[in-house]
């Protein structure tokens, strides 16, 4: 389904690569956790799958196609088959939950009739059938993420990428979101989820890929969040310059409901640029 063939990605010449010599394959219908500290290359990996950015070396295959051979005008077609969910939800604040899902269909030219059938179906699936008319700020963090997942899945993509989808949610809510992703996975969609959610990874016992400094250091078929491997950063065996090693057994710190509502404003800098209209770094990269 997704295959990285010796892929290296360097954003700026001379800097250390974001992803180095990546050789990995995610097969159809798989559920994969990507773990690793911030800056270890998880987001870069996802961006390459979406052809948001191109590898400096190596080849990325999605659904059997070499992405470097897809002309830019075919990229939208590629993206229609990939759903994407973010830590900060990225709902349109001026549209209701229903309209947010509708938007994803309308902008790719789905007929009105189909939209009227699909949107309620999706709301039903994510358990928000009665909240379609709510604005995003009237929904809790978990509910907003459900709307975001509905929007990503409404086109029935064969791949769903989730970049720390539970990063802003309390453990109980996160569990619900994970259940939803599992359900989607059971319908045959390949799910790749970057996460710091130790509890979730340990509970699910799915494939775990750990990245450190742009390289895959661990790939376990039914892994746990931390291992005794000496290279593993999150196990606390290697010093990590970016963030504190997580020693809190509960996972992310408790977040109150009020704080969740404001999370939309708190965008981590890495994600901030992900879909900005002008990706300066990228331009230079691609011009080379």
């Amino acid at each position, binding site marked *: 389904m997704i295959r990285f063939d010796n892929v290296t990605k360097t954003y700026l010449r001379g800097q250390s690569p974001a992803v180095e010599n990546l050789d990995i394959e995610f097969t159809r219908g798989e559920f994969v956790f990507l773990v690793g500290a911030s800056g270890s290359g998880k987001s870069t990996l996802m961006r390459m799958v*979406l052809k948001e950015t191109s590898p400096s070396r190596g080849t990325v295959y999605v659904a059997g196609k070499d992405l470097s051979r897809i002309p*830019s*005008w075919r*990229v*939208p*077609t*590629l*993206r*229609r*088959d990939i759903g*994407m969910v973010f830590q900060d939800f*990225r709902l*349109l*604040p001026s549209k209701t939950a229903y309209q947010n899902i509708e*938007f*994803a269909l*309308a*902008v*790719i*030219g*789905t*007929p*009105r009739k189909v*939209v009227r059938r699909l949107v309620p179906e999706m709301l039903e699936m994510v358990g928000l059938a009665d909240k379609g008319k709510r604005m995003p700020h009237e929904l809790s963090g978990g509910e907003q993420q459900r709307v975001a997942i509905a*929007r*990503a899945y409404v*086109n029935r993509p064969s791949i769903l990428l989730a970049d720390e989808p539970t990063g802003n949610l309390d453990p109980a809510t996160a569990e619900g979101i994970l259940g939803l992703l599992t359900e989607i996975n059971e319908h045959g969609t390949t799910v790749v989820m970057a996460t710091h959610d130790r509890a979730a990874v340990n509970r699910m016992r799915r494939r775990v890929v750990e990245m450190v400094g742009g390289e895959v250091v661990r790939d376990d078929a039914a892994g746990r969040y931390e291992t005794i491997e000496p290279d593993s950063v999150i196990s606390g065996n290697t010093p990590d310059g970016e963030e504190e090693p997580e020693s809190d057994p509960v996972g992310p710190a408790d977040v109150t409901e009020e704080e969740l509502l404001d999370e939309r404003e708190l965008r981590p800098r890495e994600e901030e640029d992900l*879909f*900005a*209209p*002008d*990706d300066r770094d*990228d*331009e230079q990269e691609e011009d080379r």
Partner: protein
Amino acid sequence: MRARYILGEILTGLWRNVAMVISVVIVTAVSLTFVGAAALMQKQILDMKSTLVEEAQVTIYMCSPHSTASSCAGGAATDAQIESVRTALEGEVLSQYVGSVEERDQEQALAIYQEQFAGEGFVSNFTAEDMPVSFHITLTDAEDSAAVVEFFQGRDGVDEVTDLLSAFAPFIDVLNQSTLFALGLAVLMLIAAALLVATTIRMSVANRRREIAIMRLVGASNVFIRAPFLLEGAVAAILGGLIASGMLWIGLQYIVEDWLTPTLGAQLISVTTADLIWAAPALIVVGAILAIVSSVVSLNRYLKV
């Protein structure tokens, strides 16, 4: 669905940036007015030249009893003097320049004179004897008029040699200079309009950043993402073109038709409000093309897919 969606996007886009859109409309309108004025002036010049070329370009008036020129000291031109002009025009030296010659005798001159001043009391005081014989010459090449004028000027029995083109040269010069001036202003304003459109698009893109990010994410096509911006610019420019046409109509109606044409004669001033039939659509098209081109350029800068 698509059409209605895009239409909605254009309307909300226009409304969100209403101040910028108004300034785009005004700047485009003013610049297109200058473009239109320049085009109409050039049309006037071309018309005038072709009218002058069609008609006699050089006219030789022989002396009449009333002539005061020094070459007419002998009174009205004699038959021999008239004959010498006639042969000179047919002669080897001049025949290469001369396309055709029409000779107007005294009777004909009187008829034209009476027609021109019909109703005036003094007309009846004149007889054919008072009128000059004249030669109306059409040149093969209007540019050679100076040579012909030179040849006859000051000859015995020749009162006056007029060159229509040189008579109208100052007028044509004024029109040409005004055209340059109007085009210069138009270019400046058009640059301002193009930059304004670019700025408006940039703001609009910034306003819709989230929507655009989601559209790209879910795989909306490039055209679909860009169309609202392009059409937004085009709508503003088309409004500008319509306003420019309106201003030109006012100018043509009140300045040209109500003042210039009666003053200078309908024969000379050929431009009328009817010319807007071709000028207005041309202006609107120019405006739309300008807006679309500058939109495409700025979209390529600010909206990468």
